[in-house]
């Protein structure tokens, strides 16, 4: 602050209060609606004060959306995406910064290309890839004319059909969302700032590359890993489109998808109180993450957008 400007400061406070209200009003009304009975929630206008049904509605929403199962799914998917992406990225970033091998630049550019093509733009072919993960092998077989070759050798007519369906499995939910390179670049940028002396000293002491990675590089990366893990956890928990395509089996739905089925449609009973309780429940874990780990969250958000 350069000068005193009480009027402007008051206006600024007013702006910020308006901003905070903008955020809080939808949440407050969700809370109010979530604490009313179904008869009360349909009354117009909606009361300004919460009713006494909050816990009962939470229980109803929990049962109706099968949250005990879908929360578990969400946790598995979010943690799986987080752990998988970080592990895979750390390894490949280590490889492209610390080794001088022939295909280094090719590998770099292959990873680089995947940086910013969101999964939403290629849902249909990705779905096919997951519905039959053995498809690349099948192509390979077709391309190399394995069947013809077999016929030529043995005289038997064969058709090769490989199938490996990952729909309604955790890997099917997790792996396609790991396939982008943002985290790799974050770690690469970070590794480039690690002092060279550490690696030289480790080599002088006779440490193998993996030993250096495990005992020196990994401990140095902890703060980056935590920050990134928070962002990836939020990303995984809040996924929508990809889990939506997999809800053929209700037991594999994530919490956000299960919540979607609680929204009243025009032909159903307008149980907005249950829907809003469910919404509050579903947003609780990521909100707690942001509230409790705010400084890490900010670091992760800004690092991962670079």
């Amino acid at each position: 602050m350069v000068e005193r400007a009480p009027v402007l400061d008051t206006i600024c406070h007013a702006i910020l209060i308006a901003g905070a209200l903008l955020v809080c009003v939808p949440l407050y009304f969700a809370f109010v609606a979530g604490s009313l009975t179904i008869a009360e929630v349909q009354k117009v206008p909606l009361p300004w004060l919460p009713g006494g049904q909050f816990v009962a509605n939470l229980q109803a929403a929990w049962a109706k959306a099968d949250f005990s199962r879908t929360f578990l799914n969400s946790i598995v998917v979010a943690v799986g995406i987080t752990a998988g992406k970080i592990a895979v990225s750390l390894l490949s970033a280590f490889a492209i910064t610390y080794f001088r091998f022939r295909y280094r630049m090719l590998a770099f550019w292959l990873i680089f290309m995947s940086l910013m093509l969101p999964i939403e733009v290629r849902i249909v072919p990705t779905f096919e890839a997951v519905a039959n993960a053995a498809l690349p092998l099948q192509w390979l077989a077709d391309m190399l004319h394995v069947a013809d070759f077999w016929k030529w050798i043995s005289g038997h007519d064969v058709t090769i059909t490989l199938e490996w369906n990952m729909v309604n499995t955790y890997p099917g939910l997790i792996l396609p969302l790991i396939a982008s390179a943002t985290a790799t670049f974050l770690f690469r940028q970070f590794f480039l700032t690690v002092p060279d002396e550490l690696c030289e000293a480790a080599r002088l002491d006779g440490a193998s590359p993996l030993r250096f990675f495990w005992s020196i590089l990994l401990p140095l990366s902890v703060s980056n890993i935590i920050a990134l893990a928070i962002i990836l956890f939020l990303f995984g928990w809040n996924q929508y489109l990809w889990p939506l395509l997999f809800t053929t089996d209700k037991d594999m739905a994530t919490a956000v998808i299960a919540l979607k089925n609680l929204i009243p449609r025009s032909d159903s009973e307008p149980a907005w109180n249950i829907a809003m309780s469910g919404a509050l429940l579903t947003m609780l874990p990521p909100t707690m993450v942001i509230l409790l780990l705010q400084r890490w969250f900010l670091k992760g958000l800004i690092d991962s957008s670079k």
Partner: protein
Amino acid sequence: MNASSPIASAPIWPESPAVQVAQPSGLARSQHPSPGATVAEHSPVTPRPIRARTPKRGQPDREPGLKRANFGREAGLPTLLLLPQLLILVCFFFIPSLRALMQSVLLSDPFGSNVQFVWFDNFKALFASGEYRQSIVTTIWFTVTQNVITLAVAVVLAFASDRVVRGRSVYRTLILLPYAIAPAIAGILWAFLFNPVVGPLAHMLHALGISWDPNRNPNDALWLVIMAASWKHICYDYIFLAVGLLAVPASLMEAAAVDGAGPIRRFFLIALPMLGPTVFFLAVMNFIYGFFETFAIIDAVTHGGPAGATNILVYKVYVDGFINLDLGSSAAQSVLLMTFALICTLLQFRYFDHKVNYGV
């Protein structure tokens, strides 16, 4: 970034990604707002970070992005380390992308039994269809409006929170909250607020004599999803602008103040232009968000309706591919969207150019 950064613990506000001018003064300003700071304290010349340009031992032909101290020419181990990443990318990124490209020039029936090569007929059919052109218009209107609202609100909030000292962290925390909320949930919250039967805000609109019904009126539906999408994304723009503002040199602001420029004038003439790259970056990110990530809002709130009023492009890819099973057309749409995403990425790298030093 200097050599000591890896060991340092995370600061409350991480070092600015956006504007790298005079971070020390920016960070100092954030923690100890000192009204009496003199201009002389802050050198206007940003000290360049001293980069190790020492002669390299042994390896004169350095490759970009390779550590000077590396593990030499080993082929087996790095390949092994890269394998998981590359396998996943090939299976779930490269092959699907190529298949989209292939399918966009093929015509196949829903069961895949009859496939024909049709050149660019799928694309021609797309641009000939009024529905698709309508979807393009809707998407542009949706993303541009969302972009403008999000950036405008975020700029105002960032300006205000940069001036306010008391309660700053409380405001900041509250404004950040929507980041935690899934787009689908944000959509549901707003759908409830503006539900024509039970929604409290819709009730207020009705009381004001505005006939509001997003289930019937296409315009209302579009505004509903724009509001939900902006509400969810303001926090993102806000964070980057707030961090960027911290990095604006206090000396510049003070010099301008001495010359008689008021706070608002300083903001628009000094701080905002210095944040230019950040604003550009955010605009691109907002476009990406609006094009792709708002799928959940559309699907949870309007299902693209009424009468296709909120049928944005990415939603149409989903509907045509998974519900109407028109694979060729859906693939052609995917390819067009990919092109758009690539353009956005390239635009972003123009911004990254100044940031990412591949030679370090």
